[in-house]
């Protein structure tokens, strides 16, 4: 899903769609389970406080896999994967020291298959070889090695405002000895824009679109904070993430893990920027809106402020404009999550639908506000709570 390879696949998928217009599913039959190898996901990062690797079983039909909301601390939890627990995982450093990884096992089972080396990124020796060894409880042995690229690590993000309508951003970085390629990643609500480049700079316009997402949305969304990172990567990381197995042939991946499948790569984050993306707000529907209480507001909602932008105008008169922005939340004791989070929505003929996101990702909505513009006021209802909500334009 990274860079140009993904886009080619997406084009291919689009063509496949044409073929499957006429192709019908004619049968679905159960087939025998297979015996799959262990999959390893490991990267040594020069900026990580600890080095983390994931160990899981490839999917062979042995269990039902579901896709629950992602939990960072428990990536295999809730049936999302088949964690490989209790494995013996060691890392041999360039000077011959052997480190043993500890599994993030908690009493509730969270953290199974997540292994961690107490090795801060700044301790990684550059242009030097690290060797990884994994032995599972079934006796399977996986080995791999990586050479960490050089280059000065960017530990702290630079913050700046980015006006999507007027600005373009030149991102430059110093070349890193030993780097196979540079990974550019821009966080975005519909998924990051990710690509590799051999150069030492990219210029990003505000109108940049994301070919890694099927609808080709913009990358920059007014109202959102968006991180940009540039990392020097080794050849293992580059080859694993630039290649893919397509659904029909199941081939294409470059695997350098002996005895299993996966990646043991390394990277050095060279550039780290946090953009506060903004845009002009000349439209009637755009601006900053504050909550106003009323007698019909049965249960006060925790949402106190909306900052709305017209993200894109509709292409057809019978469709709605797209809205992006952020909302503020009144944090109460015990609340977790973001006090300021993203929102996405639409507006058409004065009617507005706003999806209040759990964080900054379009995939996870926590509440929906449907309302209408009445003068400078949005009057609407939440889907998840009773009563009327009013937000008054401030500017």
């Amino acid at each position, binding site marked *: 899903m990274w860079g140009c390879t993904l886009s080619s696949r997406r*084009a291919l998928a689009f063509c496949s769609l044409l073929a499957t217009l006429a192709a019908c*599913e004619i049968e679905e039959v159960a087939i025998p389970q297979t015996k799959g190898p262990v999959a390893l996901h490991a990267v040594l990062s020069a900026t990580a406080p600890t080095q983390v690797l994931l160990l899981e079983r490839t*999917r062979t039909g042995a269990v039902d896999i579901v896709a629950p909301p992602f939990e960072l601390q428990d990536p295999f939890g809730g049936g999302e994967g088949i964690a490989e627990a209790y494995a013996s995982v060691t890392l041999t450093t360039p000077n011959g020291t052997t480190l043993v990884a500890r599994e993030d096992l908690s009493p509730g089972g969270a953290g199974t298959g997540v292994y961690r080396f107490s090795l801060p990124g700044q301790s990684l020796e550059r242009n030097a070889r690290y060797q990884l060894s994994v032995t599972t409880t079934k006796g399977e042995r996986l080995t791999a090695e990586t050479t960490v690229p050089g280059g000065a690590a960017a530990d702290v993000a630079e913050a700046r405002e980015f006006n999507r309508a007027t600005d373009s951003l030149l991102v430059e970085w110093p070349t890193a000895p030993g780097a196979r390629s540079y990974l550019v990643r821009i966080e975005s609500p519909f998924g990051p824009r990710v690509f590799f480049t051999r150069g030492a700079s990219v210029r990003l316009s505000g109108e940049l679109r994301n070919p890694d997402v099927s609808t080709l949305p913009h990358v920059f969304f007014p109202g959102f904070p968006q991180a940009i990172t540039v990392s020097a990567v080794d050849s293992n990381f580059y080859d694993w993430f630039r290649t893919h197995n397509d659904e029909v042939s199941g081939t294409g991946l470059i695997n350098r893990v002996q005895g299993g499948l996966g990646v043991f790569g390394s990277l050095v984050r060279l550039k780290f920027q946090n953009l506060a993306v903004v845009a002009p707000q000349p439209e009637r529907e755009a601006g900053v809106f504050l909550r106003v209480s009323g007698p019909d507001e049965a249960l006060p909602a925790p949402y106190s402020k909306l900052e709305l932008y017209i993200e894109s105008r509709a292409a057809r008169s019978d469709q709605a404009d797209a809205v992006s922005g952020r909302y503020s939340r009144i944090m109460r004791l015990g609340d977790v999550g973001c006090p300021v989070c993203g929102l996405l929505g639409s507006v058409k003929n004065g009617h507005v639908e706003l999806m209040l996101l759990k964080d900054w990702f379009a995939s996870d909505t926590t509440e929906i506000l449907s309302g209408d513009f009445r003068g400078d006021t949005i009057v609407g209802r939440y889907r998840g709570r009773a009563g009327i909500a009013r937000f008054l334009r401030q500017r």
Partner: protein
Amino acid sequence: MTFVRLTLFGVVLALAPSLAKAQGPAAGAIAGRVVAAADSGAITPVPAAVASVLGSAFESITDTDGRFVLSGLVAGPQTVRVRIPGYRTVERQVVVAAGDTVSIEIRLEPDAQRLAPVLTVARSPDAEIFATRPNVSTITLGAAAMAGVPSAGEPDVIRVAQLLPGVVARNDYNTGLNVHGGEADQNLILLDGYPLYNPFHLGGLFSTFMDATVGGIELMMGAFPARYGGRLSSVLDVQSAEETRPGVHVSADISALGTTGRAAGAFDRGRGSWSIAGRRTYADALASVFTSNIFPYHFRDLHAHASYTLPGNTRLTVTAYEGKDVLDANLAEFASDSGSKAGSGEWAFDWGNRLLGASIARDLGPDVRLPLVGLRLGERTTVEQRVSLSSFSTLLDLGDGAFSQRSRISDVTLSGSVVARGTSHDRSIGYELATQRVRYASGSTQTGTTDYDLRQRPASAALWIDDLWRVSPKWIVQGGLRGEALRARRWMALSPRLSVKYFLKPDLALTAATARVTQSQHSLAGDGPLRYFEVWIASDSIIPVATAWHWIAGAEKRLGNTGTVRAEGFYKRYERVLDVNKSEDPQLHGDEFLPIRGSSYGVDVLARLQPVTGPGGWLAYTYGVSARWDDSTRWSPGHDRRHNLNVVTTWRFTKYRLGARLGYATGTPYNAIVGEIARRTYDPSTDNWGTGNPNRNVESLSGARNGARFPASKRLDVNASREFRIRGARVAPYVSVLNTFNSKNVFVYLYRYSRNPPTRRAYSQFPILPSVGVHVEF
């Protein structure tokens, strides 16, 4: 320097005979063309007709383009007679002028009742070819033979070629040709002899050739003559139809898919003819009438052809073609049931061919001698010069330059030949100079990054000689040698060609042939079940030239004048063939292909009956085995099919025409999926594995390469048409039904290993697919 010398040598050789027109007695000549109307209404040449001058010994047989020359005639009125079984004999009065060539065109009318009187003196085109050429693994089909084959919409030349022996069609969605176990990029596709780099539309579902423009095809499936080169497997030469009727004649084919229109005519008393045809699909326009949903795809073709015979029997021809597939979509305009599509981006996905070719051919008459040495070349010598510009390009642009990928090959070819026909030898010598501009690039204008940008300018030269030697009534030998050079690789090679025919009886012959062939242009389209379009790159200092040897042996038996039975065994050995590297690094050049070796062998059987009226058709069966290997692995290519049977029948009556095709084919290999892996991503901004944005992707894991096979497929297609005459117009509505019994032929399998139990879903090739249309001709 080698290249320059070869170039000069070729030009001099090709031009020399034209400088040496011999002096002879004052006499005149008749240059003629014999044509007939096919069922489709297209005017097609009639090869192998006997043209003679009454009261003299002058006689000539028309060539594949229906042309003949009678030279050395006494000036004054003469009567030309043209005879061929199945047509009424035509006699035409002509006044021959001293020192000039009179051009005539003779249009034949079908007349099966007249078969008997001429049966002993003239042969059908197939019979003529059988008697005069080794013709190993070569099949010709006229427009009439192709017209009755059932199809989705109008008949499709390449779909018809897929029904011939030795040819494997990968599946219903793919018009790629796999000939004698070769890959789909190993076929030289020619339009009037000019190369066409991507003969597909709609991801291989339709070919670029419009039925109304096709006069006939010739498919050479191996050991082809020395004049052809550059591909490892086959040559498919599609000939444009030529109109012989004066005035303007218009025809149209209207189907649910699209409409083809053609206008054509002859002028200057038959010295010249022209035609122009266009086709466009209109599913996009229809969809916009009935729904707000947008169908963002169409393809179009434009084909023009003209010829003119100058005084002195010099013939000029020009062929032009442009075709384009357009898949442009503004995703923000798509209808949506909920939410907003605003903010979605645009696709631009276009690809197409362009071709412009011209030739000038001159018949130098009966007594041409080489300058200086005075060597007589033959009884009839023709010199021809050809030039063509052919290009194919693709462009994918996502999100206004967020990602763009383009490929383009532009070919300029200059070629020439001298053909000297004699009593026992037909000797040819020719050259071919070609240069291409190749570009294959990917990047983003929005980020100013380039993933790769491969630019090549290969130049090649070829010099060939060929001799068709009628050794005796029992033996025909055709030998040739093709010398080739590729500048970018400093590569030169000699490729011998040899075909032999031995007549056990006048109607029974044994044949054998061998040839070495090379290929220096390769497609990155790969070995998948769908072939969207070709992406051509050339051999250079890193990418090698692919080579192969063909060996073919067989027997052919003529059944009367219109039938034939032929069986041939073939063996093809690839010394080097290029396998697309699916894991190639876009930041490196040279790893696009992996050199491998391979072989194919098998048997073709063809039984064919081609009467002018009544039932006709063919039965084609191929048994084939193909293998590819590298140093560590051996596998069957994706088109390897053991048994392939096609029975094609047509019945032509006065007003009705019926057609049917029955196909049976054993399965082709595929990669069985044995599991899945979640592709987890590392986020450098948080130094964590995954953030949930996006959710992880799951990808398939393959077992042994092509280690499984699809089940056998079978299909029955039928069609019927009836002809009406309405106010002078010929109107022929038709109905076709593909896969009449709705056989569940498997196209691909998709697997799910993220559930217990795991499952395999089968997706079909064509389901039952009816179509209707009408052919109208004025």
